């Protein structure tokens, strides 16, 4: 054998390693881990919602998530792709959608919503990472526009194990939408109530005074979507996400500022017409949206500046739709509108490249200061 090792000798060597570029190590983070942490952060608020609204809410939650998982697997099978249920993204989509639905909504709402979210909102574009709009919000808006009555029927909290809470068997009837949905338990949310009363010419303070007790309560004992009422728990989950580095402060802070600033100004100018900033921030899906929905990686900008613009846009639009629009809650619309603007924002908010100016031209070299003499 020649003393020179050439590729001709390769037969004698063990199998060649598969070609791979550096780096040869990895930080260890995976998509599934990201999704798991978000779910962990959502868990307290979700459990609170389960307790507050009882078995029908639990049923709806299960149905919605089941629909999402089914739809995801169905689409992937249709496309001949391998299953990606393991990454948890479809589960999370279903989870977020369920949290944004009226807690006692019938099962078909959850089914249809899950189907819309996954098929129309996500798989049509190619699945995880390819969608242009937040799938859960696509489904919520589609449902809201199509079934406005069902989607705005808020149930008065009836905590599990309390006297009037429906048992598991009753809950199945509610979920299956047997007609016996007693009128007494539905009520308006703060945003909806104030909007309808305003339209009738009644000022906000009067409307709040005359409305039911469950309109507004910062501890979360209020009407609202399944997952949005436990505001403090939502906030805690959001802070956990911030602390664990899954999300960063830019989007949530900008969303909340975008809601709070115009609310402050509006309320100061005309308290009879506009709700206060506190009421805006603690009602509806403001916190849930700011921490969990607007921060969706796929549909939000990548750079800090872009994220601030994006978040602030969501906040402002939410406030505008809530205050002047035709719908009582604007978070879902605002998120989708800013989702649509995300490519434009990304395009105009690129980070500055080292050694270049923001417009992409190279920096001028700094003159060499050699006057001191060696």
């Amino acid at each position, binding site marked *: 054998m020649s003393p020179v090792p050439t590729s001709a000798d390769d037969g004698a060597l063990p199998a060649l390693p598969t070609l791979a570029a550096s780096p040869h190590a990895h930080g260890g983070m995976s998509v599934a881990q990201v999704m798991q942490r978000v779910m962990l952060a959502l868990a307290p608020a979700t459990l609170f919602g389960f307790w507050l609204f009882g078995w029908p809410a639990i049923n709806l939650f299960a149905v919605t998530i089941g629909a999402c998982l089914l739809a995801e697997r169905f689409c992937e099978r249709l496309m001949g792709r391998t299953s990606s249920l393991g990454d948890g993204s479809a589960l999370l989509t279903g989870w977020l959608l369920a949290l944004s639905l009226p807690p006692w909504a019938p099962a078909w709402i959850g089914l249809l919503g899950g189907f819309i979210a996954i098929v129309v909102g996500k798989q049509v574009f190619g699945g995880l990472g390819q969608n242009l709009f937040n799938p859960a919000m696509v489904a919520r808006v589609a449902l809201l526009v199509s079934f406005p009555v069902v989607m705005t029927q808020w149930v008065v909290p009836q905590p599990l194990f309390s006297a009037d809470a429906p048992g598991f068997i009753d809950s199945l009837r509610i979920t299956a939408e047997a007609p016996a949905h007693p009128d007494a338990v539905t009520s308006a949310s703060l945003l909806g109530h104030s909007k309808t009363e305003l339209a009738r010419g009644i000022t906000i303070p009067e409307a709040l005074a005359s409305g039911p007790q469950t309109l507004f309560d910062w501890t979360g004992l209020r009407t609202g979507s399944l997952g949005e009422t436990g505001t403090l728990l939502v906030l805690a989950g959001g802070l956990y996400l911030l602390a664990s580095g899954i999300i960063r402060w830019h989007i949530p802070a900008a969303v909340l500022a975008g809601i709070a600033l115009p609310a402050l100004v509006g309320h100061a100018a005309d308290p009879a017409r506009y709700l206060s900033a506190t009421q805006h921030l603690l009602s509806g899906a403001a916190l849930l949206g700011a921490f969990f929905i607007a921060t969706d*990686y796929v549909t939000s900008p990548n750079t800090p500046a872009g994220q*601030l613009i994006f978040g602030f846009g969501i906040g402002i639009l939410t406030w505008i739709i809530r205050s002047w629009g035709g719908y009582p809650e604007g978070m879902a619309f605002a998120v989708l509108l800013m989702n649509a603007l995300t490519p434009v924002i990304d395009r105009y908010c*690129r980070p500055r490249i080292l*050694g270049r100016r923001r417009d992409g031209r190279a920096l001028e070299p700094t003159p060499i200061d050699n006057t001191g003499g*060696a």
Partner: protein
Amino acid sequence: MGFLDKIFRPLTRSEPWGVHPDERKRPASETPIRRLPPPPLLYLPLSQHVGAAAEPIVRIGQKVLKGECVATAKGNISAPVHAPTSGEIVAIGPITAPHPSRLEMMAITLRSDMEDRWAPLEGLADPLARAPEELARRVAEAGIVGLGGATFPASVKLGLGHRSRIRTLILNGSECEPYLSCDDRLMRERAGGVIRGAVLMRHATGAREVRIGIEDNKPEAIAAMRAAVDGHADVQVCVVPARYPMGSDRQLIIELTGIEVPAESRAADVGVLVHNVGTAFAIHQAIDLGRPLVSRLMTLNGEALAQPGNYEVLVGTLVEDLLAFAGGVRGEPARLVMGGPMMGLLLPSAKVPVVKGCSGILALSATEVARDEPGPCIRCGSCTRACPVGLLPLEMNARIANAALDAAVALGLHDCIGCGCCAWVCPSRIPLVQAFNHAKGELAAHERDKKRTDATRRMAEARSERLEREAREKAEAAARRAAERKAQKAREAAESAASNSEGAPA
């Protein structure tokens, strides 16, 4: 956007760049340097540096001594190769390159006589009194290249000091790559030589000051260097935070001088020069002792290795021999890597030689490599945050995946330093660096094609010009001949007419 900039700049600039990979430098960094005896065969690639390959000046069968030049530099940017030990040249030909491509490269094969006899060498007496050019020439003759891994001929960089005025010479002792600790050991054990090299380089470049940047995770090296620096007022040891890629020259320059090197320019353009501490030590050896670069320190590390540690290795030693000396590998390593885990090159096998730019050999186990199948990008933006240059790796990758290379260039592909931070953090495990390497390679190939096309066009034009000229000349010649014939005929006619009139028919 100037207004928005003003608002957002403070918010965005505070974003830290880079990553904090698991260091894994211990226990290798705590073991003293061991010297590897000469192996039976050494393979000396002719192209161990950036630039033109060296040209062999030895014949097969020729006996050489340690330190004797076996291949000389060819062209301005090149470096010679020296015999790392004494022995006999047995082959000059292609060998498998220490490169993931599995292609071959030209190399000289040397059979060691196991005597390791130095050729007669002479250091330069009182080098600080000599002309800087002479120092640079000595460094060039010693075949010294950037030992941090860039392998740019050191003398060329020293020569830059005269063309653009150098204010600060930076010695890079940051060693930000995980696993590697050879610079750390060098600074701990041979601090005096490094400082001596720094002083020589300062003289050669005409720099006013020397700053040595060392990451704060190497307290012993900092202490040793501080002790050695005593007495040199213009040499300063600076502690920099441990963060990858602190050792990238642009990042280190910002950290140590606050100067941001403009894109498309060299550090020398702003009066800064960065050299590795290993290069400084090699320059000390070359000038004070006259020894060319024939060996270097490298770290052997990785879970699959029995005895991780730092070794002084002759250039040209087979990785196989090296691993055997270090106690061999446990089981089958998942990857053999030359260099650090973040930027190192995958080796096709252990039957390749180590080269001048090799700072370490890693035998990584499957758990360390943690290779997962890539998933779709979820646009999480981790890569954007990690990128030390401020690029958008996810956007560039999406464009490269769709073969839109020009769009990737518009996003700053050419500013990418290939540090690997983006791929290290990517939760979807997308091989971003490979995508960028691919695109850069393709673009370079396009560039070559374009040059070739231009040359072709010039040649085609020259040819058509030539054909035209030939046709013209032919036509002219034909016309001339026709005219001549005509004249001839006329003459003949005239002659015959004359003869007719002159002479009466017989």
